[in-house]
């Protein structure tokens, strides 16, 4: 039941990302995305190879339906999927994996979760903005775009986590 709920919410959020990409262009300095958070919140039984597959398919779908450069989101999202477990292990330790528990605000605390989101979004945005600019935009532009997008992504991640993660623990 919980698994189905997660899949459903995941699909709805991907659709939401596509809608934002198509109809909510805030500014050229801001990139509104919550895909790294979604990948990070994948349940623990989802292994890294599966997470990589999900990241690739999700990125491809978003690129295809938003009309952006095909593969661009995949390129940035795949490293997040690869480093999901190492990142969680680094922040929360092995205990989380020994107990086979999913991410939870109540168990793992807000600062740790925020740090994880910050690192994941930083990785995603750095790659995405670099590939998107393709060496044509000045450094300051990329830097401003990165910082604004990072702040927004972390802010969005908080309510998003409460939707994605197990409601009983949040």
């Amino acid at each position, binding site marked *: 039941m919980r698994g189905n709920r997660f899949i459903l919410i995941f699909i709805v959020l991907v659709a939401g990302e596509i809608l934002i990409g198509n109809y909510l262009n805030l500014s050229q300095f801001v990139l509104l995305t919550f895909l790294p958070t979604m990948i990070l919140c994948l349940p623990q039984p989802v*292994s890294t190879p599966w997470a990589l*597959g999900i990241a*690739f398919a999700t990125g491809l779908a978003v690129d295809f339906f938003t009309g952006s450069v095909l593969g*661009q989101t*995949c*390129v940035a999202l795949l490293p997040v999927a*690869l480093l999901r477990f190492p990142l969680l292990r680094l922040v929360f330790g092995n205990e989380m994996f020994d107990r086979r528990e999913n991410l939870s605000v109540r168990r793992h605390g807000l600062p740790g979760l925020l740090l994880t989101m910050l690192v994941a979004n930083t990785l995603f945005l750095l790659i995405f903005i670099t*590939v998107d600019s*393709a060496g044509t935009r000045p450094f300051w532009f990329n830097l401003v775009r990165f910082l604004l997008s990072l702040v927004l992504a972390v802010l969005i991640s908080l309510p998003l986590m409460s939707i994605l993660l197990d409601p009983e623990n949040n």
Partner: protein
Amino acid sequence: MAGPSKTSSWILSAAIFLLLEIAALALVGNSSSLQNVWMNRFSHRVKGFFWAGGERARNFVMLDAQNRELAEENAMLRAQLRRFQLSEVDSLQQARVAAMGSRDNFLFVPAEIMKVSRNNQHNYIILDKGSEDGIVPGAGIISGRGVIGQIGAVSRHYSYGMTLMNNRVSVSARIGADGIAVPLVWDGIHKDRALLKDLPLHYEVAPGDTVWTSGYSSVFPAGIPLGTTDRTRIVAGASSEVDVNLFENFSAVHYVTVVINTGWAEIETLEQP
């Protein structure tokens, strides 16, 4: 058991990641010409970096062989230069050279230094060429920066010589193009200093003049630059001596050329009483 399983799981994940990342990059490259150009440029830069690194490593490994080739080329060029210089000598100089009995019969053999001493009063040198390579006792040793020394003894594959940093070695030197010819010896202290001895008191030497081999000895051909003059001193009120800053750096020399005078034996016969 958990170790290998974890490792293989990581290898699998990394392989899938690489595969998907490459696929994604290929998609990016095919979808947009801007990104395609950027990626091509980036890949060229990466390739250039690795190629340059590989070439540097290869060159480093082959440095010894290249140095040997360069030494041989240097010897050949030196011989050519010598022939060229002689062809340029005017008739007066030709007459002078003939009068001194010096003919151009010098052979140049490149050699590598096997051992060299620098901290004694009688410093010596061992070269990797011997009698089988045509080296004979009494031959001169030079480098691109001047005179190194003189061969003293020869075995089949090696030769032993005394360097200029040896009290027993004296080189006939000339100050400037047409200056006086006097003996040049090591000052006994510095690795880059020598003395021009027995200069007449009336002879004035300007500091900075180049000192060359005179060609009056049968060991070294004329016109090899040795160094530049420095201070002049009067010795015992009878003659003066001049400090010479040598061009040669005895600490760094590794490849040399042995100069063999093919008329040496004939000259020695004449010199015998």
